């Protein structure tokens, strides 16, 4: 076997020094965070399709992870909805854009922003009502309890009743208008809805289950402490 040649000391020194300088340089940089400029305008779905070389399902989910990394406070909801629309167009069978819109972005304390997210859910629901009703059901609850906008909540509830055709849609979802008009608090309503979804095995994803249970717990604490 051929013996390795001895490397001159100055080369070893250069290697060690440059490696140390690289580590020091990286340590001095600020931690990687989302751009201060905020969310850029959304590209068209066709452009994303081209950029992902046809890997639409992967691209749609990466768009959602990208959106998740932004702080909700100060987020431009007009742009956000553009991105969500592009993700939904890239993979129309993915539940992620509607889930994020209804369960994350619509729950912002800013009522105007929340309305923008809820309208996105409604708009997307009309494209595939039998698959997307659970998110509009949640949107109806948010409209009633967070926005205190009963006509909006009734509009969403009525849309579920009138536009869904599948026998898989449960009766409680079809009769949501009554549910909306009943004098129950948000926690009670959310419990009924989540209980129904869990009972039917609609929520199988462990991350989603954990997230929803956490939300229910937070809601419970908020109701107990009397915070709106």
């Amino acid at each position: 076997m051929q013996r390795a040649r001895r490397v001159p000391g100055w080369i070893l020194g250069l290697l060690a020094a440059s490696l140390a300088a690289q580590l020091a340089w990286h340590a001095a940089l600020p931690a990687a965070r989302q751009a201060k400029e905020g969310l850029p305008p959304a590209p068209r779905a066709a452009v994303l399709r081209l950029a992902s070389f046809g890997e639409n399902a992967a691209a749609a989910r990466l768009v959602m992870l990208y959106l998740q990394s932004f702080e909700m406070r100060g987020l431009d909801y007009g742009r956000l909805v553009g991105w969500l629309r592009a993700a939904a167009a890239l993979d129309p069978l993915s539940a992620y854009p509607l889930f994020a819109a209804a369960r994350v972005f619509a729950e912002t304390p800013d009522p105007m922003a929340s309305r923008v997210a809820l309208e996105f859910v409604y708009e997307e629901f009309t494209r595939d009502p039998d698959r997307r009703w659970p998110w509009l059901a949640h949107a109806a609850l948010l409209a009633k309890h967070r926005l205190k906008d009963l006509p909006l909540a009734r509009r969403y509830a009525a849309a579920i009743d009138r536009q869904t055709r599948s026998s898989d849609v449960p009766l409680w979802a079809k009769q949501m208008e009554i549910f909306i008009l009943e004098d129950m608090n948000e926690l009670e309503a959310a419990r009924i809805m989540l209980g129904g979804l869990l009972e039917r095995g609609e929520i199988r994803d462990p991350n989603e289950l954990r997230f929803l249970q956490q939300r229910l717990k937070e809601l419970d604490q908020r109701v107990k402490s009397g915070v709106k």
Partner: protein
Amino acid sequence: MPASILARLVVLEARRGGLPWLAAACIAAGVALAAFLSQVALTESRELQVAIVAAWLRACAVFLVAAHVASRTLREVDDKALELMLALPLGRPAQYLGRFAGLAACGALLAAAFAAPLALLAPPGAVALWGLSLAFELALVAATALFFAMTLVQPVPAIAATAGLYLLGRSIAALQALAGGGPLADASFAGELARGAVGAVAFLLPRLDAVTRTEWLLYGVPSAAAYAAAIGGLLLYGVVLVAAGLFDFERKSL
């Protein structure tokens, strides 16, 4: 039969050349990436894993095959091994087809290895169809890289031409959709010309966006007719490339 011996030698060379280790590293990186991304997903964590791993493994497989084919072919040319082989009592078509068969077999083995981890995340039937489609896709990539390596006889141009053809094949449908422009499309002569040019280029490319689709793993297998049409398109284009390669190899003076 001598062509099959040549094919076996090509597979043996790939096995000894470190290709299996590179494939294993790609699988490990894909699984690690998917595990990380699934932790940050709020929902559809399994779907996210499938989508990312499948896209990653497909890209890795194509790169490995293209780089392997181009580098081994050009090494054969540079080391004068090709000239030595041509001195054997074996016709040029048999030599070319033997090499191609060996490279396609390497692609098939790679496709089987890359489909295996997906079987843990997606239905086995869908994974089998995805893996079979990937094997055909890699055979097409091997045919492309072999053709360009033999024709251009330089590694960078050969790999660049293979990557260009492959990426264009995967994005041509999206380009056509963009060029269509919808209701606001430019109706001028220049606009029509641009659309016509994209359409003409599409005629010369394989429809790679229709094969090895991640959606099959997520939402169910395609109809038999759609699958057969997609694979049939690949096979047809593969035959065109092999025929072009044979033509070039026959006329080449070595």
